[in-house]
């Protein structure tokens, strides 16, 4: 690729396109097609229209009155849990599916952890009449049976991945392997701001609707903007709306999948980033109760933001996360996803410790709803 492309493919030292030669032309095609589409008002209007009349955008910004009162802050929730299919993943997927259609592809491939991205991809596949194949770790299949059945009901093929930790990392590896064999007719619909260029950039652009909407919904710039970070797409999309403001950006990782906080520089799934790994570079297994955060890497833009200090990354553990689901449910009548509850849990802790001072305004993205996690929570109950 040209040096301009290499430049654009990087976030500081992170990012890039570390993929087998077989995938280079496919990545270049996606980059070219996306660049064109993103400059094409017809494409953007069509996407905006579908997001609105189909996916339920804009999602509301809900003042969490009772929890705010308890915490002594003003908490505003960006409600991606209300988006069609139940999470922010649909924003990205509808964008990529329209792009794939524009590129003449007949098929979508996706990896999924929590199943949210898989369900979203299966949904877009059904909507546009494209075959859909979703790779999912066997362990995640067990804990997210509802989403597996939703994908199949939507007509998608769900392929269990039995290698490695049998979670998101392995599903992603397997999806990449499969893409190599199917680049001609298939688009790899990657689910977060990760993977080889142009994915981290493209997915961020498709998710910036979260941040752009939120920005237009707040009456003043909030003091804090908080989102959970798995691959980092809901956080990247949220942050994108506030990068030029004084808001402090907080990305909340799972304690057992804290690539930014506990990882080191590495290359995984086609890009340079921060990764959980051993001294040789073998990738470590992440461990989180939230399957969508059960990933040892993180989007390159977040690795970059962490290094520049543009955003701060913090972690919370499973116990606090489960408590946060219950607390939000009982104070606001919202059962959020375990992933999203990481952001809530951090805020609860930070407000208690004074780290977030009394009176602060906090915008927090609820990336998804918790229906998919009921089985997990039931086991703990």
């Amino acid at each position, binding site marked *: 690729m040209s040096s301009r492309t290499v430049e654009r493919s990087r976030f500081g030292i992170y990012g890039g396109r570390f993929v087998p*030669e*077989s995938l*280079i*032309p496919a990545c270049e095609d996606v980059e070219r097609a996306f660049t064109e589409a993103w400059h094409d008002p017809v494409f953007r209007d069509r996407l905006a229209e579908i997001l609105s009349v189909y996916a339920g955008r804009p999602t509301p910004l809900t003042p969490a009155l009772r929890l705010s009162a308890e915490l002594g802050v003003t908490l505003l929730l960006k409600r991606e849990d209300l988006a069609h299919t139940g999470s922010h993943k649909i924003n990205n997927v509808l964008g990529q599916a329209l792009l794939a259609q524009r590129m003449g592809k007949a098929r979508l491939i996706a990896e999924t952890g929590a199943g949210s991205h898989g369900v979203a991809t299966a949904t877009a596949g059904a909507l546009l009449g494209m075959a859909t194949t979703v790779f999912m770790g066997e362990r995640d299949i067990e804990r997210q049976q509802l989403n597996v059945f939703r994908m199949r009901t939507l007509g998608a093929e769900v392929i269990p991945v039995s290698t490695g930790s049998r979670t998101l990392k392995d599903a992603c*590896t397997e999806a990449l392997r499969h893409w190599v064999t199917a680049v001609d007719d298939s688009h790899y619909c990657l689910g977060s701001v990760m993977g080889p260029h142009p994915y981290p950039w493209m997915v961020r652009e498709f998710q910036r609707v979260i941040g752009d909407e939120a920005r237009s919904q707040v009456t003043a710039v909030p003091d804090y903007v908080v989102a959970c970070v798995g691959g980092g797409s809901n956080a990247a999309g949220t942050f994108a709306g506030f990068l030029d403001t004084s808001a402090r950006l907080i990305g909340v990782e799972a304690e057992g999948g804290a690539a930014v906080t506990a990882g080191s520089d*590495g290359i995984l799934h086609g890009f340079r980033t921060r990764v959980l*790994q051993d001294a*040789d570079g073998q990738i470590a297994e992440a461990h989180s109760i939230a399957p969508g955060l059960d990933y040892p890497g993180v989007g390159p833009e977040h690795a970059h933001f962490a290094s520049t200090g543009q955003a701060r990354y913090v972690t919370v553990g499973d116990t606090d996360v489960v408590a946060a689901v219950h607390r939000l449910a009982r104070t606001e009548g919202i059962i959020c996803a375990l992933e999203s509850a990481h952001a809530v849990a951090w805020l609860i802790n930070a407000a208690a410790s004074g780290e977030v001072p009394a009176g602060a305004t906090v915008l927090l993205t609820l990336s998804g709803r918790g229906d998919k996690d009921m089985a997990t929570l039931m086991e703990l109950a």
Partner: protein
Amino acid sequence: MNVLETHTRRVRDSGRKLLVPYVTGGLAGDWTDYLHAAADAGADVLEVGLPFSDPMLDGPAIQRASDAALARGATIDSILTDVSRLSLPVPVVAMTYANLVFRRGAEWFCAALRDAGFSGLIVPDVPVDEADELLAAATGLDLVLLVSPATTRERRREIAGRSGGYVYAVSLMGTTGARAALPASAGELARSVKAVTDLPVLLGFGVSSPATARAAVVEADGVIVGSTLMQQVLDGSSPGDVGVSLTGMRAALDGLDA
């Protein structure tokens, strides 16, 4: 010109087709015996895999071989130490993934390879566009780059121009793994790469039998054979058994079989 490329060119120029077996480092206690057996069976270059937890370009056989090696406790260190103790009649090339290369830095990694007696390096997830740093660090080592059936003409030229030792032509759009027959794309790819370089061009991916090896060298200068061997080892084959397989392929390449 580095050791590896001097060697591969000489073999190619001699009219002999190159046979390059692949063995996953640390796969078994006696894994280096498989290297000796391969050399004895007529290998021209040996590829040693440094196993990675997430081998994105590998099919089931090499995935399982990598997992087995890692489960046995294989590390970069242990494998390099094992190799450094050998005295092999042909050059040895390391094959691994980017994360192992860059973990402690490309400089460190290349130095370690050189110290252990390696002559070359293949990193399938470092395409030519991302190769600058590694090329700079790999002095004394040949960095073997890959082309695929999807690679454009312009890129083929660029890759061939920057590759060292040989050009690794990936015979098909897929992961490593034994196939019954080579696809038509293989021959076309080898021919088109040879049209833009005078480096030896070797076909890999799917070469798994005397027949596929012979088909490959209609156009290519040689073959890389990995999955079929690793499958044999996983199934319990001894170094001797693997040697017999390779002898068959050697004969096919030499036009002596059938």
